[in-house]
């Protein structure tokens, strides 16, 4: 599924229109307190919360043939469960279980098209899984202070590039500690229906 119509972020109405290129190339949309324009780098180095929901897209593949199918499509797979590897344009592949993977890339990236074609034939042993989670980016040297208020996992000890399935502010989330050397950053996937709640909660904590 790759409609020409862009995906709407579940927190679209909470974003103030300020966009910028984030720590990497993907467009990150920001919310208050930067109502007057993009923050400077110093602010970003300190702490910010950004929304990647409308600029990224995901697909899940599950089933006994998931790994072989993805490999046949030239997708490099992580060896361990909860590990990730880079994919497409600033995208990633995460192994959720022995027979389940999730792939995320930028919405502009067409790397999903051949995958979708293969999945649309619904071969046996392969299940395409819809993934419409919101994607947030919590970034900056104070990110762990925020994480410690919502999550019982010691994220500072999580190896970069490792996905953690946990609860943040009592909602189920997948949190990836980005393997970026230049800044501490967490990618947070949360059910779209809970995105507004989690965004507001994190925003309140950030103040």
């Amino acid at each position: 599924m790759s409609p020409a119509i862009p995906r709407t972020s579940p927190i679209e109405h909470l974003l103030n229109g300020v966009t910028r290129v984030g720590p990497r190339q993907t467009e990150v949309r920001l919310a208050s307190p930067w109502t007057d324009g993009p923050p400077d780098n110093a602010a970003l180095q300190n702490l910010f919360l950004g929304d990647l929901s409308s600029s990224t897209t995901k697909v899940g593949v599950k089933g006994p043939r998931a790994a072989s199918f993805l490999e046949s499509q030239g997708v490099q797979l992580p060896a361990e469960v909860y590990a990730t590897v880079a994919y497409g344009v600033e995208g990633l592949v995460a192994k959720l279980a022995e027979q389940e993977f999730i792939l995320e890339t930028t919405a502009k990236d067409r790397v999903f098209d051949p995958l979708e074609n293969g999945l649309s034939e619904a071969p046996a042993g392969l299940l395409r899984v819809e993934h419409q989670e919101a994607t947030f980016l919590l970034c900056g040297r104070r990110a762990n202070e925020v994480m410690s208020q919502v999550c019982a996992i010691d994220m500072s000890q999580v190896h970069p590039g490792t996905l953690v399935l946990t609860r943040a502010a009592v909602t189920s989330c997948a949190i990836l500690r980005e393997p970026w050397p230049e800044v501490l950053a967490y990618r947070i996937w949360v059910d779209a229906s809970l995105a507004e709640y989690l965004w507001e909660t994190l925003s309140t904590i950030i103040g």
Partner: protein
Amino acid sequence: MNQRLPPQPGEWIDRSQPISFRFEGGDYQGYCGDLISSALWANGVHMQGRSFKYHRPRGIYSLAGHDANAVFEDETKTNIRGDLVGLRSGMDLRAVNTKGGLHHDRLSIVDRFSKLMPVGFYYKAFHTPRWLFPHYEKQIRQIAGLGAIRAGQTAQLTPKDYGFCQVLVVGAGPSGLSAALAVADQGVDVLLVDEHAHLGGSLTWQSGGDEKSQELCQELVNLAQAHQHITVRTKTQVAGCYADLWVALVDDVRLTKLRAQAMVVASGVIEQPAVFGNNDLPGVMLASAAQRLIHLYAVKPWQQCVALVANSDGYRAVLDLHRAGSSVAAVVDLRDDAGDCRFAAQVHQLGMRVLMGSMIYEAVPGAGKRSIRGAVVCPLGADGRLRENQSQVIDCDGIAMSVGWAPAGAPLYQVGGKFSYDTTVEQLVPREMPDNVFAAGRVRGVFGLDERLTDGRRAGLEVARKLGHGSNELPEKISVTGPAPSHPYPVFRHAKKKNFIDLDEDLHFIDLVNAHQEGFDNIELIKRYSTVGMGPSQGKIANMNSVRVLARLNDKSIDQTGTTTSRPFYQPVSLEHLAGRRFHPLRRTPMHRWHLEAHAEFVHVGSWLRPEYYAVAGQDRETSILQEASHVREYAGLMDVSTLGKIEVAGPDAVSFLERIYTGRFAKQNTGKLRYVLACDEMGVVIDDGIAVRLSDNHFYVTATTSGAADFYREMQRWALIWDMDVQLVDVTGHIAAMNLAGPQSREVLQKLTSVDVSPEGFPFLGVRRGEVAGIPASLMRVGFVGELGYEIHVPAGHAAHVWTEIMRAGASSKIRPFGVEAQRLLRLEKGHLIVGQDTDALTNPYEANMAWAVARKKQFFVGQRTLQVLNERPLTRKLVGVKMAPGYRGPFPEECHLIIEQGEMIGRVTSFAPRSTLGYGLGLVFVHPDWSEAGTKVCICVDRGAKIEAEITSTPFYDPDDLRQK
């Protein structure tokens, strides 16, 4: 009277920041760094509160966070602890638990009748007549207690958080500092926590003129604060310790749930009072409290005092008092010999009057018992009893007590540590501790400064070794030696005056004696009967003496007597700290914003927010709902049904799995068709329903009820594991949004947005199609829940708002309107469709609910089948049927759960009811006894305020019984 001293070395107050505050209507000055109680004392305010039960005047007692009678409130908060809370500018405080203010407390008269109120008096006096007890209870609660909750205050959110550390060191005195440095030097990360504002522990206030100890203190503090492996948290209590070293840390603003790998407890000791007559009045305090006043807050405790001592610490306190300018009229030593004590020697050199082998019999109260004006001192006989006939009165305005200590061992107790009584130090000391937990310093009975440093270092190295760091060589373990820092029994009976064991609960010596005489001779029983140790300080300055008293009454040892259980929390923790930010997740659909802009009124359904109806200006709720429903019947309506549970079931065993989960059959279901599904539990109780779509041979898409979806998905996962089936389950509830386009115009609206053939022939009832709607890939399903031509449109959540908006735009010419949950409920009610959870309860089986048609009884197996087979052989005890009011009825209407009564017997109840319907009369569903279920039967429904109305049982559906419109 200003009792502020000149600047003291190491004082905690900042004289450059004076603070103004108010107390009981008076204006006072203090400094930043003051406690409320220290600032009041500095201003000459010695009476700072009233006691819990007798409303006796009370002042500073411990100044260590254990003073339960110097408790205040302001306009926003109550139970503000004077010896814990720092002074803030603008505070306007008053004492709690008074009627008419602290100085004119009308309830102080209770003290005069105290003989009528022995411990447990209310158990004995107010048991009959029983109906009066609530009245007595109310009165007692008004007379005794603490502060009143301010119900109107806005809740404060606190940043409760999680923390992690390798080693937690509790207490930053010499032992704790030494331990922290020893661990950190091995490269282990340490969190050093102390409840006070500054590090140093007893070295900060227990000076005795020893400058070396102060220098050492500063040196250790500097090293700890500069150490890269040590993180320091001051003003932080270890409020509770739980299994696996889960520790609750509480500071002014937050509760931290800390997970530590190991813990060193160097929490020190708590000074214990002596028990003598009037030992509770303002002016009587622990020597450590006086020393804290002097050294930390630069406040002179008294003009002239008597010091009651039984250890070297007492003599050290006397020296501190002397240097602060308090005249020490006499040192009263319970012992016959002070031993080889350098502080005692210095006291003698100063020429102070020392009365060995003596005890204070009572404090002589000043006017109104708001102060003391003397101490009655008696020698002790060889039998340890007071020689009252040899008493003398010594003038003084204060009494300092230094007769012993009890370990601040709560963290150790709470993690499962065991203590035993060591007569060498006359103190409980830890005997057994769990893995990864260590103790050091005075909590372990080690009192000498050098010994404490060594003990702390040893504990630090030991914990480092435990975590795999450092060498195996450890310093030798310190053995405690005499003389004992605690007196074995500093408790003396007084014939008339109250001699308090527990100031929190106003319990005096005779209360414990009486409780013991009544048979409460076990420490846990006497605690519960007398409430000793159950006040705000949780017995920190009461429990040890109560154990000593009980041991003596039972003629047993301390170990035989035992101690009460130490439970969290160590200090009272405010509810706002426990509540934290109060996370309440709310789920919103992708169209939530659209609903808001369309003036939707929302209702909570499970964890979801759903539009109940769309408000129309100048129109009431009921009319709006009826109009929405009528619009669906006449034109077209669009409803957000994204909240439905949506589960994909795929794999070779998908069909077999669904056959087991649901009551219906799936083997012969055609691809591209949907069917209604019903699920029961093992007891045959209806637990969920929905539709099942067959997408391919081994791939189904099923829906579940909004509020039951999460539980049902878990149930499916559980069964899949138990049955070991080759099936993949995916909950896509939040990933797929859904909308129900219904009404006679719905086909026309939909056709504008899709290339799918939606004609009756091309897309029949119960059919399923895949195609694009408004450019978005969608699943289309022909459903009829509301009884009209209808389509459910399922699309990816991220594109749902677009699809919704396009449908509303395309439907404009067809007069499309959104409709909410209430209109849907009315529409389905007119069709006689039940809602699981609304029209069924925790006992409803399919036969009662007229759902026998959905049960394939000849299947090999499904969950609940055996029970349903049994139930099917039995006569029904109730039946779900329709009920309606006569057209034009104008009386009160039934509501859900109203009972149906016939001949004085309950024969049924209402499950759903709509007073207004598109059919022009009120209608609903009811459970009734089968004898009353025939159509046309008149039944009597009891509505609110006891009114009874008549209604008629009817068959369902009420609307379109031949189902012509939905097909």
